[in-house]
């Protein structure tokens, strides 16, 4: 906390010895933070470390129990988010919430459009102001385009433009890259650099360590609500950062075991769903982890959905252990030994209001049954067994899953599917939005499963994850498989070339 204390610029926004409790839980303990103009500051920590609480304190959502918020060195109290906004603090969330039927310009100037005589909205001025903002950000977006259909990346740009239109001096970006593709991340970082040069202070939150090293100058680490360190990023290594976050040395993040691939377990032949993906063929062998890479929208998730039977395919076939799967029938795919851990755990993986026990139990409705009735004891022991094996952290197995952290929710989804004893496991973005410690655990688990003879197909937008875990990388581009790259040849360059359609198939 001694950083640049005597000379140089003053922090535009600072927290001093902030504490905040929720009931018995102390979410923040004596945490301090200083944000300087022209600096991108990373906030690192595992799930539950207190990052969200800290952001919400900065944004005026939470009032601290103790400590001060300093704006330009003056103690301030934010009575609500509007106070923070008026003070020039803007939060860009992972998934922006725009009005889909309004244009970009209307979204930016919602409720405070430039007016002409008789209170009519001055569309010309709105349009021009929006163009000016876009120019400032170095981005080309048509101000008159409706927000509906914009990619998440573009929506974030609109949110940033909106923040600038409020003369925001502090931008808090809460995991802005979680749903972005590589090139979208690059563009976002370009915008962030522009903002930095223009003198904004940026607080940047990401679970992807390499991004922190790419874009940030300063990093503050939280663990269990306490401040661990705040230091320049220069001279730090990823291992240093991980150690501060998890409080111990993390064994490898990508603990891939070498396994000899067995016979073909999953065979997809010329699978086509019109307008979505075309002529997709590949095999996954027992013991193999096959990575499925590609840009968001390339059709990876859609192939997985069709293989599992959520959507119907129009042509082609899928075989599991030599047995053809029925088109559009998840229950028969399950019975054949296929499991799918879907990309959206809250909407697709879990029933949030149901207990951990019953969520895991949902895949066992055929097995934990005695004489046609549920066998509650068998269900409980099956669920407990897998919750313990995957080290899910919970108070009681009967607690609803929405009481768990994101990483633990993901473990429940994995438990739910591993409990079926699958021969083929498809995981779609298995570590999205979960902290680095849990991520390493999930990777170890996948590696162990493959070693035990499970065929694993792993869809991921996290390129280091694909490169670190996959024996083979399949790449999709615009609905087609464009490349199959063995582990030895897989690099960021080869995979991205195929994903963007620059390489021949």
């Amino acid at each position, binding site marked *: 906390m001694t950083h640049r204390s005597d000379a140089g610029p003053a922090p535009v926004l600072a927290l001093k010895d902030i504490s905040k*409790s*929720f*009931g*018995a*839980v102390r*979410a923040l303990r004596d945490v301090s933070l200083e944000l300087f103009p022209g600096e991108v500051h990373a906030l690192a*920590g*595992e*799930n*539950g*470390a*207190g*990052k*969200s*609480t800290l952001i*919400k304190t900065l944004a005026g959502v939470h009032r601290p129990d103790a400590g001060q918020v300093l704006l330009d060195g003056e103690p301030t109290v934010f009575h609500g988010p509007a106070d923070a906004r008026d003070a020039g603090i803007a939060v860009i969330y*992972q998934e922006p919430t725009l009005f889909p039927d309004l244009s970009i310009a209307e979204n930016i100037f919602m409720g405070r459009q430039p007016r002409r005589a008789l209170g009519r909205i001055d569309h010309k001025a709105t349009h021009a102001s929006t163009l000016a903002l876009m120019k400032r950000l170095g981005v080309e977006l048509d101000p008159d385009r409706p927000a509906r259909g914009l990619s998440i990346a573009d929506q974030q740009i609109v949110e940033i433009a909106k923040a600038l239109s409020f003369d925001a001096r502090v931008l808090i970006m809460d*995991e802005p890259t979680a749903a972005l593709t590589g090139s979208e991340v690059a563009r976002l970082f370009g915008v962030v650099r522009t903002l930095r040069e223009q003198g904004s202070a940026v607080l940047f939150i990401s679970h992807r360590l390499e991004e922190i090293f790419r874009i940030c100058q300063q990093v503050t680490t939280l663990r269990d609500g306490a401040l661990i360190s705040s230091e320049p990023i220069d001279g730090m290594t990823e291992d240093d950062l991980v150690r501060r976050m998890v409080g111990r040395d993390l064994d490898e993040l990508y603990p891939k075991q070498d396994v000899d691939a067995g016979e073909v377990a999953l065979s997809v032949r010329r699978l086509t769903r019109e307008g979505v993906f075309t002529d997709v063929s590949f095999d996954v062998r027992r013991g193999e982890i096959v990575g499925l890479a590609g840009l968001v929208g390339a059709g990876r998730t859609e192939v997985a959905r069709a293989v599992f039977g*959520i959507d119907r395919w129009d042509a082609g076939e899928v075989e599991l252990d030599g047995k053809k799967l029925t088109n559009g029938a*998840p*229950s028969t*795919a*399950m019975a054949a030994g296929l499991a*799918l851990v*879907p990309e959206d755990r809250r*909407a*697709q*993986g*879990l*029933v*949030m*209001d*149901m*207990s951990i026990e*019953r969520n895991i*139990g*949902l*895949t066992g*409705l*055929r097995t934990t*049954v005695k004489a*046609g*009735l*549920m066998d509650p004891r068998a269900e409980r022991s099956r669920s407990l067994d897998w919750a313990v094996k995957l080290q899910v952290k919970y*108070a*009681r197995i*009967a*607690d*609803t899953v929405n*009481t*768990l*952290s*994101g990483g633990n929710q993901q473990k429940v989804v994995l438990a*739910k599917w591993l409990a079926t004893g699958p021969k083929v496991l498809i995981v779609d973005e298995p570590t999205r*939005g979960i902290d680095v410690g849990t991520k390493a655990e999930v990777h170890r688990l996948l590696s162990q499963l493959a070693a035990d003879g499970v065929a694993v197909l792993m869809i991921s937008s996290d390129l280091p994850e694909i490169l670190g875990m996959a024996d083979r990388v399949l790449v999709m581009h615009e609905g087609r498989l464009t490349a199959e790259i063995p582990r030895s040849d897989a690099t960021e360059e080869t995979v991205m070339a195929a994903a963007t359609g620059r390489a021949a198939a």
Partner: protein
Amino acid sequence: MADSALARAVRWDTVVGALLIVVLLLSFGTVDGFGNALNLSFLIGNTLPIALIALPMTLLVVSGEIDLSVASTAGLSGAVMGALWNEGMTIETIIPICLLLGVVCGLINGLLVTRLGLPSLAVTIGTLAAYRGIAQIVLGSDAVTDFPTQYLDFASGRIGDTFIPYAFLPFLVLLAIAVVALHATPFGRSLFAIGANEEAARFAGIRVKRQKLILFTLTGLMASLTGIFWALHYASARYDNATGLELSVVAAVLLGGIDFDGGKGTLGGAIAGVFLLGALQNVMSLQDVSAQSQIVVTGVLLVLSVLGPRVARQISVARAGRRAASAPTTS
């Protein structure tokens, strides 16, 4: 938090159960003519149509759907029963035909909802009108009353001098089946999952459409059984039998704590809600409250029943929050 005695105490279905007991005790004490066996048998007999349809309706609402055509299906069954009886068919042939008709009515609702993906609220408002219209075409404005005495006696009589109608016994059997089906079978478990998060249920390999189709069909079957019972109980088959019954059924089920958004509730609560409504209607009749005013009361109850469980849940969440203070998570 669901396990703590404190949280259980404010569970809505227990509240309704307690309320039912309070209303019954108060009525015994203060309402003339309430406590005798004959009136109680009337109370139960008049409530049975609501109770019978409430069984499948509970399962349907738990799974996130609704069927508003039930009263029309019941009316149609009664009308067809009357028409066929006028044609000279035996009652033993007529009843299976009517039940089959109910199955068809339910199947139509189910197919429209599951195959065409239409919202069940809209579909069944449509068939509510259509089935009732067909009933009128079938029977016109006739009233058929001359059904065989042994059937009429069964549907309206009671066991000796007790307060128990004969028809209550088969209802108890159906109730037991429904309780087991909803709370102790994989089928019932899947309904809760479908109601709470249909997409997650699909991703868990649950055959969502098939389960819903089964439910709509069962609902049609039970509605037609109710229509048959209604015609015999009141010894009158008319096209407008059971008009407006769907309002009472839905009100009772929601009053019993079944969440209109699906995924929550118990059959015990729903049945407590049914008999609470039945008891109130009986008391109002004894006090000479007009039929119109009774409908107003039912409507108000419907609104309160949607409100009540939410308030109860918020109280229990707030208490759990104060106790444990679930930590805010960083996503």
